[in-house]
């Protein structure tokens, strides 16, 4: 809504004045809880600083407020926002801010263009309610966004949003680095990959693992969760999805339109969504970009840990684990590698194991056994793996769930039992335990067989196929 000709300028002299409460992701500022508009002061400092993009990988981030994403700002529809942008004196570059919540040329960019060591102030009236992205728009704009300059501002409707039990703030974005995903050291920005829209990292809240492990967001069974989700881009559109949930309500694109019972919602670059859902079952819900290679290979993965009593009607867990034998098929439970004529050498097991690894283990434990920090444990130079070969065999046969500690990092994931023959397990473990810096003797099929016997002796199922 724009002020038409003859419409008087807003007189804010009598309005209350307050300073906005800013929150760092994943936290959300409290509701304004006001019945009338105010003049709200917002101060934001731009800092160019080095930070962690992934385990062992650093990057020079350009930030609003020293964090990626920048803090979440919360105002009320009709408020007048007095915005001051400070550009730290040691920064190399000029910066500005374009808030999509601003109605006016450049969204504030022209008025907030600021040299290092200076500050700019402008004000705007929050005319339109909704959840909006803000970003730096200084040329070359793509690079300023690619380096981390985005965040979100919520303009609450006059009547406020319905109360929920938990509110969280997350922003998806991608990074373009000279080195490939996971390559250690300080990684400079790659202009070439950015132009090609070929990111190495796609992350929530500015780094790989920002929302996993101890950083996971939490809720209790029966609570309603509201996620404010922005997409900083600079290039990719997000297929935002929470594994194990259905969004009861989506504020489509952060606006007024409500959709219900949504599995995956599109969030454009420079756009947003608000999603709400009641968590019914305990466990870990996984937040992903369902453009799924980004999740398994580039880092777009977060966790919501839900605690509370189980309701087996809502979700039973695994009730039975049977062999499925289609009619007319020979009675074959698996197709284990045939027992070779002679005992294989270590080199032959390495070779066979590598092929198997790349078919079976690679998706989680990654190409070089490095795992995904905080999500899937590493095999490369893993103290947990290398300290106990029999346990490793047991895990491949029986699977593993629950918390373990690997190289001083806690992991809590599920590995399913692997339907592999003694030969296959000997091969793949010989490969794993002698690659990427690991050194161990060859694992033999006899050792695998012995572990199977032990599992049976303690009442478990040591058989191939879980029987």
């Amino acid at each position: 809504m724009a002020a038409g000709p003859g419409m008087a300028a807003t007189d804010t002299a009598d309005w209350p004045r307050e300073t906005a409460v800013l929150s760092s992701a994943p936290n959300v500022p409290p509701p304004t809880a006001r019945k009338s508009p105010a003049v709200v002061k917002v101060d934001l400092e731009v800092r160019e600083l080095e930070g962690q993009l992934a385990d062992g990988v650093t990057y020079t981030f350009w930030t609003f407020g020293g964090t990626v994403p920048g803090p979440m700002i919360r105002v009320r529809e009709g408020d007048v926002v007095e915005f001051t942008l400070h550009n730290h004196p040691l920064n190399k570059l000029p910066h500005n801010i374009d808030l999509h919540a601003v109605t006016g040329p450049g969204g504030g960019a022209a008025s907030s263009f600021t040299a290092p060591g200076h500050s700019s102030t402008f004000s705007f009236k929050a005319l339109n309610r909704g959840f909006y992205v803000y970003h730096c728009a200084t040329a070359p704009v793509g690079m300023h966004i690619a380096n981390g300059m985005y965040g979100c501002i919520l303009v609450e409707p006059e009547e406020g949003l319905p109360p929920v039990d938990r509110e969280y703030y997350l922003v998806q974005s991608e990074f373009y680095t000279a080195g490939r995903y996971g390559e250690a050291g300080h990684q400079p920005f790659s202009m070439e990959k950015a132009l090609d829209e070929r990111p190495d990292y796609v992350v929530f809240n500015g780094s790989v693992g920002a929302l996993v492990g101890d950083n996971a967001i939490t809720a209790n069974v029966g609570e309603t969760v509201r996620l404010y989700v922005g997409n900083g881009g600079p290039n990719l559109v997000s297929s935002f999805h929470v594994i194990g949930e259905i969004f009861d309500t989506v504020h489509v694109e952060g606006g007024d339109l409500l959709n219900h019972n949504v599995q995956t919602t599109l969030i454009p670059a420079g756009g947003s969504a608000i999603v709400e859902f009641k968590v019914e079952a305990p466990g870990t819900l996984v937040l992903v970009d369902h453009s799924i290679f980004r999740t398994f290979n580039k880092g777009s993965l977060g966790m919501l840990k839900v605690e509370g009593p189980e309701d087996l009607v809502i979700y039973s867990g695994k009730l039975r684990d049977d062999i499925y034998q289609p009619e007319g098929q020979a009675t074959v439970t698996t197709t284990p590698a045939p027992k070779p004529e002679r005992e294989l050498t270590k080199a032959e097991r390495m070779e066979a194991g590598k092929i198997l690894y790349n078919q079976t283990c690679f998706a989680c434990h990654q190409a070089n056994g490095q795992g995904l920090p905080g999500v899937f444990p590493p095999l490369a130079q893993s103290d947990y793996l290398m300290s106990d070969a029999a346990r490793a065999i047991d895990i491949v046969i029986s699977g593993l769930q629950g918390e373990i500690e690997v190289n001083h990092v806690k992991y809590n994931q599920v590995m399913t039992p692997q339907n592999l023959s003694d030969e296959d397990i000997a091969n793949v473990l010989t490969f794993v335990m002698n690659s990427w810096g690991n050194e161990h003797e060859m694992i033999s099929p006899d050792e695998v067989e012995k572990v199977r016997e032990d599992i049976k002796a303690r009442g478990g199922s040591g058989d191939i196929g879980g029987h």
Partner: protein
Amino acid sequence: MALVPGGVYTNLYRDQGIVSVEAFEMDVTPVTNRDYLDFVIANPEWRRSQIKRVFADDSYLAHWEDDLTPGPDAPADSPVVRVSWFAARAYAKAQHKRLPTLAEWELAARPDVSNTVARILAWYGKPVRGVMPEVRSTFVNPYGLWDMHGLVWEWVEDFNTALVTGESRADAGLERNLFCGSGTIGAASFEDYAAFMRYAFRSSLQARYTVPNLGFRCARSLKP
């Protein structure tokens, strides 16, 4: 000083046209703290405590120990920074030189660009820590000029004309040029990205501003 051959400079923002540049001379390095100290000794009105506030903001030479002592944060052979455009101009005039024009500076910096884009972008993107390195610590270009990229930003005579034409209708195009995607019409090469950052930086300045990463060097015309 080193000779920079004349040439034709096509402005990054094309509506500002093509500029023909005569051959000229340019300082081989940015002006150092040592050089600048001599200047303020001879010209008391440009000392930190004496300078008029219209000519420089509060952080003018703020890293110097006092008026006539650059001190440990401003080593003698490091480029002088935190100087305003007015001060840089006065310095140049005292040497019977002048500031280079934007077109001259860009032309002088050009021979480096194709080989050093990654380095330039890396420098632009990296925050400064501690004391400014000395001049001649980066690299020398084919004209014999040191440190054109990778040490400091540099003032130019017409730093604020890149986007502001002084003609109100044209000024309405300011945001079109400066912000967001429309700034890149016809310019998408890596080289232009580095240039965009220089243009954006210059455009953010006012003549009295002083900035910790901003210094200058002087130029001189061949024909007086």
